[in-house]
């Protein structure tokens, strides 16, 4: 079943069985729990989930930006066909991070160094990864990149506090773009911004994608705004990806009960539909329930939900829910087979 598609040339990123657990005083937090997903070249995948579902941890796991309290960190990540989990830290730093993929961190506008001019900060990434680039050339490239993301030339040598939130966000995007990586991970790039600024930043990101073919992983809790960029959608719940679909089918009709309820909770500007909320709370990742993690809050709960559902392949879409067992074409991913067979037995 698990054919090795990592060699597939259409994929920029393929993540197999990625696990990231953290050690805390209360126990082990299973932030990213056996996640499989893939992303095509020149495409954008949106990872939607509520706070605490592990979506930011997934980004950190892919980029290997890890805190010190890591308990388990395993799996395989293929970037452009190259397995990168096996690389040592120095190689990863020099050849992968910011060269092949970069990050626009959460609240990036506040993540800039307050005592460095923005030009120097953005140039730094270039100078570190390409030692043969001179300082002057680097600043020239920064100027070009600023023009590209819509930061006026006159802001080049200013300090972050002199810029508005939207401008700082653009600087953070320029910083991720400066080495022209084929993949950029955006962690909540617009959530702290005003609506007009948000729309502006989304326009910039779209233009970059159309013109340079950059792939994105967009991590957000804002379902409505995520549709601005999405080619594919992955929904995360309690450390697991529970649904993966193309954007058109997803926004038309999500499959997983959690995704359905999440969509019903999104306020629409016009129209008469009543908003629904999801009763209860997500489970603790310290000791997540066995079986389906959403079962407790799910209106379609059945006896089978005691067992962990595998990722069912339904057409081109994948969903981790027993409801789709009968119509599934197969099972996606590497790990969940065993649990599925266990149930069949």
């Amino acid at each position, binding site marked *: 079943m698990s054919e090795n598609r990592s060699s597939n040339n259409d994929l920029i990123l393929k993540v197999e069985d990625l696990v990231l657990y953290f050690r805390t005083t209360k126990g082990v937090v299973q932030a990213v729990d056996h996640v499989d997903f893939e992303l095509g070249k020149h495409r954008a995948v949106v990872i939607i989930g509520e706070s605490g579902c592990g979506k930011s941890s997934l980004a950190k796991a892919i980029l290997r930006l890890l805190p010190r309290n890591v308990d388990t960190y395993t799996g395989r990540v293929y970037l452009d066909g190259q397995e990168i989990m096996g690389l040592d830290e120095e190689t990863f730093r020099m050849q992968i991070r910011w060269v092949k993929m970069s990050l626009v961190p959460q609240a990036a506008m506040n993540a800039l160094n307050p005592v460095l001019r923005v030009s120097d900060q953005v140039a730094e990434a270039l100078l570190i990864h390409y030692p043969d680039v001179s300082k002057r050339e680097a600043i020239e490239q920064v100027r070009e990149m600023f023009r590209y993301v819509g930061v006026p030339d006159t802001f080049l040598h200013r300090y972050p506090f002199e810029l508005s939130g*939207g401008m700082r966000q653009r600087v953070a995007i320029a910083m991720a773009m400066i080495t022209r990586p084929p993949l950029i991970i955006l962690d909540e790039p617009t959530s702290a911004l005003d609506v007009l600024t948000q729309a502006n930043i989304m326009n910039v990101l779209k233009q970059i994608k159309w013109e340079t073919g950059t792939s994105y992983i967009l991590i957000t809790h804002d379902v409505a705004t995520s549709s601005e960029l999405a080619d594919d959608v992955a929904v995360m719940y309690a450390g697991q990806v529970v649904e993966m679909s193309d954007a058109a089918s997803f926004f038309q009709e999500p499959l997983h009960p959690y995704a359905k309820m999440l969509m019903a909770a999104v306020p629409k500007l016009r129209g008469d539909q009543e908003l629904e909320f999801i009763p209860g709370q997500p489970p603790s990742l310290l000791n997540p329930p066995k079986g389906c993690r959403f079962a407790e809050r799910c209106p379609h709960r059945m006896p089978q939900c005691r067992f962990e559902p595998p990722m069912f392949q339904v057409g081109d879409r994948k969903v981790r829910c027993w409801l789709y067992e009968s119509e599934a074409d197969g099972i996606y991913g590497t790990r969940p087979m065993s649990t599925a067979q266990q149930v069949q037995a």
Partner: protein
Amino acid sequence: MAVQTQTYAEPTATPTSGEPLLSVRNLRVWYELKKWGFGHAGYVRAVDNVSFDLARGEAIAIVGESGCGKSSLMKAILGLVRPYDGEILFEGRDIFAGGRAGLRWYRSQVGYVQQDPFGALPPFMSIRRILEEPLILGGVKNRQERLKRIREVLEEVKLSPPEDFLNKFPHMLSGGQQQRVVIARAMIRRPKLLVADEPVSMLDASVRVEILKLLRQIQSDYNLAVIYITHDLSTVRYFSERIFVMYAGKIIEKAETDELLWHPRHPYTVALLNAISDPDASNAHKLREVPPGEPPSLVHPPPGCRFHPRCKAILRGQCDVNEPPEFEPRPEHRVACWLYEQGDRVPPGYEEQA
């Protein structure tokens, strides 16, 4: 620089009969800028000539981007900053006229729901102490009485059974529960007016709806007047009856909620509405139209209409010179924009919804 004395805004007619609960008259909240610590260097005109009435039991939304003055307006309404000019009448009385005692009484009539629930709750106080404090300050001497009211209010915000929460600390609660405690604290002295500053913007989508529904229910159960301050036009529909749109210190458009969402008139409101995405896969294939530039400085606001440097419908010689008065192109729909001098029309760049 001469203070603009022209007053355009006539007080809006009260939608319900009787005296309004809160009446804001030509309010100006200006902050003085000092040079070298003492020389006068101008004013930040955060709120400039704002007037509106709020009826008992009415929910309004004030919508605007950061820096538009909505927080200063809110602070003035809460009695936290003194206005530079104008007055705020609560049940016909100027809230600043009664000195400290007057303000104290006024604050017992007004509840405040903060934006970030975790930041708003003291981390070292139990829920019970958090809720008890306003009662003690309000002079409720009997301990049993206080406890009874705390239980009551926890039930009101659906934190039941109250016993499960009384002795917990804020960090033990989820974001939604924390926001309920904040609402309970605002409600504990049975106010007549609730000021909610972005009450759901820090919450997850699924919890957001829960809190909005709760606020709406409390509002109708207790006939509360609510001022809902937000930058997110997509949530106001579920909550408020009227919307005021603020830009650069002024209210530029006032209308009932559906009227404003379906028939926006001010070019800025149109831009705001056009910038909001509904979840739809086709969004990814088109760019959104956004007005160029950023909101103006509130120290030296542009002459004429403050939106004119970014407006694509600008009437040269008019918008950049004269400040627009409020026109009423449609019944109960006021807009400060020269486009409507001759009556109603569909604003450029907007597809009128059927």
